[in-house]
């Protein structure tokens, strides 16, 4: 960030941003909601990088978690339930220089927006997608979500959810188009921030599933995980988010993982019933990015456009 350099010189920044410069008012989530931790993590990432606020756009759908843009002091787009990804991709399509973050819930992303989810993976545009997975519909007051555990009692399934959940990680790793798939938990701020930072650094769509506590409706779903860190599997290795030794130490189960190894990533993700993996499961920056196609011709001048148009009209002339 700042400070004296080796040669004692000091660059005076024209603008200097503090956390406040990224804070858009008081977040109105329930006390104890995991969304707050994510908000703080993102603000810190931007502050640490001294990211210019007006160049960041936070796009969301509808849901508790989709309130996210309102609590950031950047540009924001709080759109329609299930549809943040097409909007985010559209923003990026002709303004590739903008820094785009997407906040989406498990209903937003994996149910109503599932079609867009798959295709956003395929477009692989350079953005961070944060899946706030609280295993339930929060805003509409406790309905079953596609990730609700079997038997979870909700207002639409008072006797308990009928079907086993779908696993967003297994789904994502099933596509050979994914370029970055990670998982983290809201209750470990260091891992959360490090993982989101890795997704942000990734060139392409950085997808992070965040296991997010909802104290109001799914108080118990992550209780065991939170109380017993041995249920988690910390992925380690050169390409994993850097964690302070003190933080890493709480995870008794660790596994060295090469995030380029899709086969290994799939097997780790499929064993989540034994140990829930956290870290970067898969990353491959060589996947094509859609903006490399949509931005062709961006710098064309009006003169060039008019000349091309004249030539095109001449093709229709008789």
């Amino acid at each position, binding site marked *: 960030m700042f400070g004296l350099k080796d040669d004692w010189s000091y660059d005076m920044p024209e603008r200097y941003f503090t956390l406040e410069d990224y804070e*858009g008012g008081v977040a109105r989530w329930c006390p104890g909601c995991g969304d707050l931790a994510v908000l703080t993590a993102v603000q810190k990432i931007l502050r640490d990088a001294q990211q*210019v*606020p*007006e*160049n960041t*756009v*936070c*796009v969301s759908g509808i849901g508790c978690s989709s309130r996210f*843009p*309102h609590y*950031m*002091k*950047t*540009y*924001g*787009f*709080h*759109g*329609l339930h299930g*549809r943040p*990804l*097409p*909007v*985010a*991709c*559209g*923003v*990026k*399509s*002709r*303004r590739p*220089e*903008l820094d785009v973050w997407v906040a989406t819930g498990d209903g937003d992303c994996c149910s109503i927006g599932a*079609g*867009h989810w*798959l*295709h956003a993976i395929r477009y692989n545009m350079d953005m961070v997608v944060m899946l706030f997975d609280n295993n339930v519909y929060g805003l509409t007051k406790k309905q079953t979500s596609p990730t609700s555990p079997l038997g979870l009692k909700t207002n639409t399934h008072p006797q308990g959810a009928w079907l086993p959940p779908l696993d967003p990680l297994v789904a994502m790793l099933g596509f050979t188009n994914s370029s970055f798939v990670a998982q983290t938990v809201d209750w470990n701020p260091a891992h959360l921030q490090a993982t989101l930072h890795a997704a942000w650094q990734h060139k392409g769509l950085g997808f992070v599933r965040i296991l997010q506590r909802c104290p109001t409706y799914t108080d118990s779903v992550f209780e065991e995980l939170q109380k017993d860190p041995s249920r988690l599997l910390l992925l380690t290795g050169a390409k994993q988010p850097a964690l302070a030794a003190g933080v890493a130490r709480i995870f008794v189960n660790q596994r060295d993982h090469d995030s380029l190894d899709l086969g290994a990533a799939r097997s780790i993700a499929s064993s989540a019933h034994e140990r829930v993996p956290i870290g970067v499961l898969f990353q491959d920056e060589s996947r094509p990015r859609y903006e490399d*196609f*949509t*931005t*062709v*011709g*961006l*710098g*064309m001048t*009006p003169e*060039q*456009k*008019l000349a*091309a*148009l*004249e*030539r*095109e*009209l001449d093709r*229709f*002339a*008789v």
Partner: protein
Amino acid sequence: MGKSDKAQALAEPKDPTITRVEEHTIEIVSDSGEGAQKAGQAYGAISARMGNGVWTVEIIPAEIKPPARSRAGASGIRVRVGSKPVTNMGDEADLVVALNEQVLYGRIAQKAYRKGTVVLLENRWADDPQEAIRVAYAEGLRHFREQGLVVHELALESACRKVTQDVAVGKNMFVLGMLCRICGRDPQKAREEIAAVFGKKSKDVVAKNHGLFDAGWRFAEEQIPLRFLIPPAPVTSRLCVMNGNQALGLGIMAAGMEMVAMYPITPATSASHYLAGVFGKVGGCVHQAEDEIAAIGFAIGASYAGKTACTITSGPGLALKTEFLGLAVMAEIPLVVVVVQRGGPSTGLPTKVEQGDLLAVLYGQPGDAPKIVIAAATIEECFHLPIAARRLAEAFRTPVIVLTDANLATGVAPVPRPEPQPDWLAPPLDLAAWDPAVPPYDWDERSGISPRPIPGQRGGEYVLTGLAHTKQSKVAYDPDSNQNGCAARSKKLAAFRGTLVPPTVEGDPDGDLLVVGWGSSLGAIREAVDRARGEGLRVSSLHVRFLSPLEPGLAAIFARFRQVMTVEINYSDEPDAPGVGPEYRRRAQLATLLRGETLVDVDCWSNVHGQPLRPGHIHAEIARRLGGGKH
């Protein structure tokens, strides 16, 4: 471009066997893949080069690869040529070239021909080795003659075989030569057109097609005793020949829009096909989205980021875009939505024309969703409306819907060549700092208009939301905020309406009947009304282009006529249908709108036959109402 000497010479027939006509309609019908459409397009272009008015429309089979000689497989083209500009496909054809007899049945069922329509029919089927074909041919011949068609049997294919072995590919230019001879087309202009069409291929290909054209010309000279003269008008301006969807694509480029997000759907898709091939030349991009919801979402994303984008669709896709359209209204996002209408509801009539989406675009979103809606009446307007739409979208910070239809999408006609202007193009992004004292929705008290911050503008950071919001774009559920927001958005339409002039009445400013239309039926309505006026009927017409806000002054205009009737291609109950009656009659869409807006008892005449309206039918209805004329 001056009128050629040849055209001058053609102006008056020297030879008494030549029939001089004001207008003339041909069709070429065949199995698909026989090149009929290419021949017809060339015939139309040659006529346009000569200075004739032209309207060309393709006859498209229902299947992609129909079996040969099948009734449903009729593929081909209709070309209507006139001395004056031609604005529609007209009534029944005068002259038909048919490459087998089966393809005529479907056209007869569509009432495309009248008694006396001349058919030049390929006769090789008479000696086909298969008995079933010989029988079918003889049966067809008898049937067509019973219908009153004048059939000439001709050995087209064997004549063509003298010039080329490859008759399957070459026959169409032979037919073109024949038609050009019969209809007095300028052979020099025809050769130019053929050279232009095949110019990308080798010189040999051009020469071969010139040879086929000459052979067809000679064949007509020797064997077909029919000659028409359709005097052209002097060519005074540069012309382009295009269909409505190409015009849309060109208009989108001329508007400086850089992003078109779409999902394939007939009849809108061909506009995107055209654009996909050329958009890159002006730095633009066609995004084929995963569905229509994503397409409009993507366009909205680009628009929000400062690059006003366009999404193109037809009925079923429009239905899917509903929720995002509401968001664009609510959050005041400039956006151009082009709807190329087809028959509905549901999957409806995918390839056929209807003007059935008017009320859906006006009222199809929950809540109050005011937006600008414009309808193109001509191919030329398909070019110009996207340019206007982008500017209006940005000036009024609103979605603008441009309605066209399958008739415009597939109709081909000469239009004055547009002269692109620098100020048609979208201005470059201005990311100068935003005054933080100005809220993101600084609604002007009178007009409701507000400037908008673009991501990247320092000091303009705001969160766009589809929830009810204040000027600061803060979510607000209190009574006043929602009322104020709705009022601000509604005021924009009032402000825009204040800039519009009342539409012009074609014909006398008062009379017994005013025919009101919108969209692609302009040409057919005018023609019908002209005919009726020629017969002394007191009828005028008026065409509405701005449907939201509606053009001003309509009630005052309507008051000067004894009857007002819309003519539309959408459903209305027949007034005397059982169980309907005047109190409970569901009327055509523009009529419904006009009745509400003007409190005038506007009547309607409409159908959903999936066909462009014919001047003859409209004329008959006018005559019926006014008790005169022949019908």
